[in-house]
């Protein structure tokens, strides 16, 4: 399946171009940019990520882990009597357990989310980058379109892209 890469030298030009093309029924497969282009996601149909939901679940896991762990260590397995204040009941000890519960919640959320983020992005050490042109991490913005999904002839599409201000058009 052949692809067309249209390069722009400005994020705003690309965003306008994308809006015009989508209005004409062109399906834009992806956009590569050196920084987030705000407002591009709804235009090219990128849905909001659900990473935050994962983060919440990791947070709950961390919190439960901390509370269950401390309940076991301090109340069940080896209750200590420090300064005449014995560890008989969980609820009496809760205030002293808050700091570590908080820390473990943050620890699990942050690391769980980071790992999920890298896995979902398929960005891990040694992975191969997929950006079509090395300049897209510097100052160029590239739109990727599958010619089969373009909804128009290739020549017509190239004309449309040029009209939106693309500075370079490559085929792959």
């Amino acid at each position, binding site marked *: 399946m052949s692809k067309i890469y249209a390069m722009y*030298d*400005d994020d*705003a*030009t690309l*965003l*306008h171009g994308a809006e015009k093309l989508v209005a004409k029924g062109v399906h834009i497969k*992806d*956009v*590569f*940019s*050196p*920084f*987030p*282009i*705000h*407002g591009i*996601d709804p235009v090219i149909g*990128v849905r*909001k*990520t659900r*990473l*935050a939901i994962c983060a919440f679940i990791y947070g709950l896991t961390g919190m439960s882990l901390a509370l269950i762990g401390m309940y076991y*260590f*301090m109340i069940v397995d*080896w209750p*200590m009597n*420090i300064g005449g204040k014995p*560890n008989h009941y969980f609820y009496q000890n809760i205030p*002293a*357990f808050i*700091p*570590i519960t*908080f*820390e*473990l919640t*943050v*620890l699990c*959320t*942050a*690391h769980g*989310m*980071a790992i999920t*983020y890298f896995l*979902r*992005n*398929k*960005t*891990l*050490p*040694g*992975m*191969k*980058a997929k*950006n079509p042109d090395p*300049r*897209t*991490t*510097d*100052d160029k913005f590239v739109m990727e379109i599958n010619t089969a999904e373009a909804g128009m002839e290739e020549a017509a599409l190239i004309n449309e892209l040029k009209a939106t201000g693309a*500075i370079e058009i490559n085929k792959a």
Partner: protein
Amino acid sequence: MHVVEAEIREPLILGEKSYNDITEDVCAPIEGKANAMWYFVFGLAGLLALWGVGNILYTVGVGIGVWGLNKTVGWAWDITNFVWWVGIGHAGTLISAVLLLFRQRWRMAINRSAEAMTIFAVMMAALFPGIHMGRIWQAYWVLPLPNQFGSLWPNFNSPLLWDVFAISTYFSVSLVFWYIGLVPDFATVRDRMVKPLPKKIYSILAFGWSGNAKHWNRFEEVSLVLAGLATPLVFSVHSIVSMDFATSVIPGWHTTIFPPYFVAGAVFSGFAMVLTLMLVMRKVLRLEDYLTLKHIEYMNIIVMLTGSMVGVAYLTELFVAWYAGVEYEGYAFMNRATGPYWWAYWSMMTCNVISPQLMWFKKIRRNLVITFILSIIVNIGMWFERFVIIVTSIHRDFLTSSWTQFHPTYVDMGVFLGTIGLFFVLFLLYSRTFPVLALNEVKTILRATGEYGVKGASSHGHDDHAAEVVVEETAAPVVEETPTVEEESTDESSTDEASEEGDNEENKEQE
């Protein structure tokens, strides 16, 4: 989408920059060769670090008896240095997390290096409790691991154990937060590298980042959530450090004001260290266009604010010591100010309370030389603060027969100087191998807060054209707030920048 800042607001990026210019400026130190000065400072720091490592090995081999500690003063330089370094670390997370949540765009020029500083400072900090244990090879005893001692667990009611969890969480979360921001910038460096070996190294570091729309979508979400997590974390860490003291019954330590007082002090010393490093870095790496006088002024204002908070805390402590009517408490503070360590107390007062008040003057806030000197004075003062709190509170305890003085040995000093050396070794290496500015973030604010907007773009070259783009782009579903002139004029203290990316992010959240 791109709101051009009001005229009254100083630009955050000077000069007529294009996106490519930012890349060039930031990658120049990585691609170029270090000059003789860099090697000289690096060598000096390296020697200091080696001396420190030698002293640490000596301590570990012989035991902490080689330090100046005695039966009365069981905590001295080691814990002072620990608290000092952790405090310095606080600025990085504050800049990258708290200022992100407050939409402070000026943070983008300093967050990368401030976070690097945080990570290196926390490393130095973690060293001290480690070697203070004496038998560092048994450091794993602080973790709740199943064991053969009748399954004896660490005491979860103890703030010292809370500290273990707080510091390790803080370190690892800061590292992850920092690295996630670094990945796209490593990709920029990777795509520019020509020589095969550096290219290979940076491709591994860049994790195969491609920068497509979905990547950026997730990137922003992760940054926002991590910032939200790191914000309470940064406050919790120094609060917990302060509880190491506050939950004890030593007069001078047993104070409820400690958590906020320590957090303010930490931010104070952290920003001072950021200033020390940035003032040198902007000059050496030629980043004056990105780390402008305005940035330095903003940081000085934070130093002034937190310094005043610390001053208020000192006075409150004194007042409460008198007002509470507890004679032990009263004596602890009288002893601080007039006892054998009066010089440490008054150095602390001068450096931390009086010197930041100079920042009320705009001329001083924007003077690089004075700022540099003051930033070092503040850090000396903050070291004395911890020394005063720790040593003067315990050197005269309840039993007068055990009253004594603390005299540091050369090992005490060697370890401390060694950590300073090690810190600079790490920071100097960082400054030549890492993108020292958050490239992907700075580029997003170029058009809005750059002096000329974006140059060289095909359709619009100058600021007036950039303004045109704004008008067109309001078609995008973004709720724009037009900042009023009043808001703009109070920009020094205001936290409500109606930034375009801010609004967009909020918009996304609502979706």
